[in-house]
C-alpha cells in the first residue's frame, strides 16, 4: 500500500482523538482519546518501519532495517500501560474526593 494512505488514516485517527479530548467533559473519555492518539502514532511507526524495510530489502534480503521502529512501538505500549495504571489511580482518588468526573471541576488542584 502507498505510505500516504497510512498517513491519512493515522492523521484522521489522531484528529478524532484531539477532537474528543477537546469536546468531552468526562475525564475517562478524555483519557481514552489520549489512548486513541497513542495508537494512531503506533500504527504510523509500524507503517514507516515497513516502508524503510521494503526499500532496504531490495538490495539486501537479510537486512534488519526497521526493527528499531517496531521496538519503539513496543516501548510506547509499555509506557502507556504504566501511564494508564497511575492515571486511573489518580482519577479514582479524585472521584473519591470530589464525587465527580467532570474536568471543569477538576481543573483546580487545590482543595
Amino acid at each position: 500500500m502507498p505510505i500516504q494512505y497510512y498517513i491519512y488514516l493515522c492523521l484522521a485517527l489522531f484528529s478524532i482523538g484531539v477532537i474528543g479530548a477537546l469536546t468531552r467533559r468526562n475525564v475517562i473519555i478524555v483519557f481514552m482519546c489520549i489512548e486513541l492518539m497513542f495508537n494512531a502514532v503506533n500504527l504510523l511507526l509500524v507503517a514507516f518501519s515497513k516502508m524503510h524495510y521494503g526499500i532496504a530489502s531490495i538490495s539486501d534480503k537479510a537486512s534488519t532495517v526497521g526493527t528499531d521502529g517496531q521496538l519503539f512501538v513496543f516501548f510506547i505500549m509499555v509506557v502507556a500501560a504504566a501511564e494508564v495504571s497511575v492515571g486511573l489511580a489518580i482519577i479514582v482518588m479524585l472521584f473519591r474526593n470530589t464525587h465527580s468526573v467532570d474536568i471543569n471541576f477538576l481543573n483546580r488542584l487545590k482543595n
Partner: protein
Amino acid sequence: MSTTEILFFFLSALALFSASMVLISKNPVHSVLWLVVTFFAISGHYILLNAQFLAIVNIIVYAGAIMVLFLFVIMLMNLNQQNEPQKNLWMKLAGVISGGCFLMVFVSLVRQALEIKTKVAMTTGGDIGLIKNLGRVLFSDYVVPFEITSVLFLSAMVGAIVMGKKD
C-alpha cells in the same frame, strides 16, 4: 482491487467508524467497547503489515489489560446513573473546528510532500515483525532500556497503590 487493498479499506473504515463512536456514545461503557473494536482494527492493520508480534501485544495489552482496567474503574464509579454534564455548543464547535484545522493542515502538508509520493509500505511480506528478529534486537541492542522498563513498572505499581489507598 486485490485482497490486501480490500482488507486495508475495510479495516480503515472500521477503525474510523468505531473511533468516532467512542466520541459519540453517551454511555462510557459503550465508549470503552467501541475503543476495543478500534484496537482490534488496528491489530488487523498490524497483521496486514506482517508485524505479528505487535498485533498480538496490542490485543493482549491494550484490548485485554488496559481496557478491562478502564471498565473496572467505570463500573466502580457507577457512572451510569449520573448524566454527564455537556459542554456548551460553542465550546464543542470550537473543539471540532480546531481538530479539523489540525487535520486540514497536515493533509495539505502530506499532499505536497514529493519525497513520499512514490514510497510504498511493504505489506504481506518481510519478516522483521516476527518475534524471532524483534527478540534478537531487543535483547542485544535494547537490553538496557528493557531493564529500565522494569523499574518504571515497579514505580508505576507503587505509585498506583499509594494513590489508590484509602487514607
